[in-house]
């Protein structure tokens, strides 16, 4: 029970057993919808977007999709698991730095050192902890495993001690702040506030070349779709049901003989892995990773996207993240002086008056069956309300 094994993705395509139609799991029609949805999404991302968007806009979309990956993870941890994590920037950053370190080393060539180290660090040789990242066999898995390991460490401490609700939110926020300070303080080896910039190549491909930028976009789009498939499986698995149960009644689940800490831990670790992957892909897409992407503000912005889209749905976080990022770009281009008002207003209106997010508009428009969730008025179940209000259970 305490072992942590995330859902193996291969089960995503396991055939349904004949006969015994269970009342709840998605039926034929829903499967049809899913397949159609995926096909539509793939067509949109792989065919339409590259055709209609300029190189510059496509690169922006690639950036948005990275943010969307983080959002998918937050959707699991927060929407499904009730853990409002305001520190996803940390995991995004860990993934991004791991990737950027590798790419910087690859740019520098064998035995070379990243330019900034000589400039700011006056180092004669590569610091020890940089060295493993020269190997793609270390760096690539590290982009995902490193954030997951950190999440595992922190999560197993925090969840077991039942730190939750606002406590957890603020603690994760403090984590983001601490990470930023730590990175900036180590300027000679991390690039300080500048971060790691000027990344030229991606596994031998020149990132200045628009064709290669397009390739990076396709990789990102493909990864996002894969993550969505994985998430869909997770949500509909028994674990997914259990996670919702933990969100709505952690103590009750404990009395059923589960250890809610492990249940939450899995969701948190998965979300961290997704954020790490997103950070790793962000680096070739944008060419920079810096503390500015990790701190409190970007971490909240990740969450805002999820809230705007619809936290507990599968697609809500993706659409919300893309919509918020797009709105940010579009508004700031159109109204450079006043866009912050509009952005703030968007958050306020959506979160306060449309708690199910934009996805709930869709759901309201076409009443969906029982399996899907945040449709009803009031949206938050009584049990959840209690869980959030009553932050102080007898220890």
């Amino acid at each position, binding site marked *: 029970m305490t072992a942590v094994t995330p859902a193996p993705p291969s089960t995503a395509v396991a055939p349904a057993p004949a006969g015994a139609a269970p009342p709840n799991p998605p039926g034929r029609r829903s499967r049809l919808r899913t397949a159609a949805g995926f096909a539509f999404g793939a067509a949109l991302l792989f065919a339409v977007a590259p055709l209609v968007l300029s190189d510059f806009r496509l690169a922006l979309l690639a950036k948005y999709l990275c943010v969307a990956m983080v959002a998918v993870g937050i959707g699991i941890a927060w929407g499904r698991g009730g853990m*409002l994590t*305001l520190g996803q920037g940390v995991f995004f950053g860990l993934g991004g730095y791991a990737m950027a370190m590798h790419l910087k080393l690859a740019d520098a060539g064998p035995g070379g050192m990243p330019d900034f180290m000589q400039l700011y660090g006056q180092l004669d040789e590569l610091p020890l902890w940089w060295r493993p990242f020269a190997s793609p066999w270390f760096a690539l898995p590290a982009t995902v495993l490193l954030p997951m390991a950190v999440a595992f460490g*922190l999560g197993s*401490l*925090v969840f077991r*001690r*039942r*730190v939750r*609700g*606002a*406590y957890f*939110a*603020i*603690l994760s*926020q*403090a*984590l983001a*702040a*601490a990470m930023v*300070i*730590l990175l*900036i*303080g180590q300027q000679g080896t991390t690039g300080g506030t500048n971060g790691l910039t000027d990344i030229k190549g991606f596994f031998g491909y020149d990132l200045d070349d628009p064709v290669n930028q397009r390739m990076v976009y396709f990789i990102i789009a493909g990864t996002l779709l894969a993550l969505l498939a994985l998430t869909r499986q997770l949500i509909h698995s028994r674990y997914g049901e259990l996670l919702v149960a933990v969100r709505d*009644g*952690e*103590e*009750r689940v404990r009395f059923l003989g589960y250890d809610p800490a492990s249940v939450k831990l899995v969701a948190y670790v998965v979300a961290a892995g997704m954020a790490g992957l997103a950070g790793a892909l962000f680096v070739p897409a944008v060419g920079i990773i810096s503390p500015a992407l990790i701190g*409190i*503000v970007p971490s*909240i912005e990740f*969450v*805002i996207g999820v*809230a705007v889209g619809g936290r507990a749905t599968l697609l809500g976080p993706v659409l919300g993240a893309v919509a918020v990022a797009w709105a940010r770009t579009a508004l700031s281009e159109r109204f450079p002086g*006043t866009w*912050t*008002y509009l*952005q*703030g*207003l*968007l*958050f*306020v209106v959506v*979160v*306060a*008056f449309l*708690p199910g997010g934009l996805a709930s508009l869709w759901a309201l428009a076409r009443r969906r069956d029982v399996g899907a969730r945040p449709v009803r008025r009031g949206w*938050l179940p009584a*049990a959840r*309300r*209690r*869980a*959030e*209000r*009553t*932050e*102080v*259970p*007898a*220890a």
Partner: protein
Amino acid sequence: MTVLFGQLFTGISIGAVLLLIALGLALTFGQMNVINMAHGEFIMAGAYTTYVLQQSITGAGLSLVVALPVAFVVAGAMGVLLEVLLIRRLYARPLDTLLVTWGVSLMLQQLARDVFGSPNVQTRAPELLTGNVALPGGLTIANNRLFILALALAAVAALTLALRLTPLGRRIRAVVQNRDLAAVSGIATSRVDRTTFFLGSGLAGVAGVALTLLGPIGPTMGTNLIIDAFLVVVVGGIGQLKGSVMVAFALGVLQATGEYLTTLSVAKVIVFVAIVAFLQWRPQGLFTLRTRSLA
């Protein structure tokens, strides 16, 4: 030795600032469960109030004295407006208050930028508060720090007395402890909520006035303070003023010690790590209202 005493006082004065900025949150977050990210902008409003008053009241000392109550009312009114317009709808989902008020804080910052300009503005401090008290052994204690310490302690005392002794305070405590029971006992809970929010936000305004003696007055001043303030309340324990008071000073001294022995950056990290470790030990903070409740 002088330096050590100096550091101890620095720690205490950092604690006093933390306490002052956290005190309002101890009410709104601690008592009402509202995570108000715009609290920092209420502090900013207090600071700008001082600035505006100095445009017409030329005496620095007088303007400061006038600014304290005015800022309390200004920030308190902003808080009430926020409560009535938004937060009232969100009592059932405290975590969402965080996101909504964050949006509000963005807008308030931009508003400050448009009204007062992007650069920081200056206020004059009374000459008395820019000097220091010399103690034997070469030790000096800055007057503005003493003033803030006194102000923080006075605010705590006033708030404690108000909560303990006044009918309003009793009502606030009743609503905190059992909203439904308070409601059926004839307490207008929504009015109590509004009053509590007024007090909490008003205290932010007072903190803003005090901070003009120490730091910058600008559109982003609030964002730098808000996390520290929340940490104080979280570690202190929700619903307890004494927790916040003790934790503010403890964190202040810890930070000052860390700063002295290492660097400012490392000290900040040390404080964060200490907080995580502390919450491992006491997940509900230093002091908790023990209640039996499920989930």
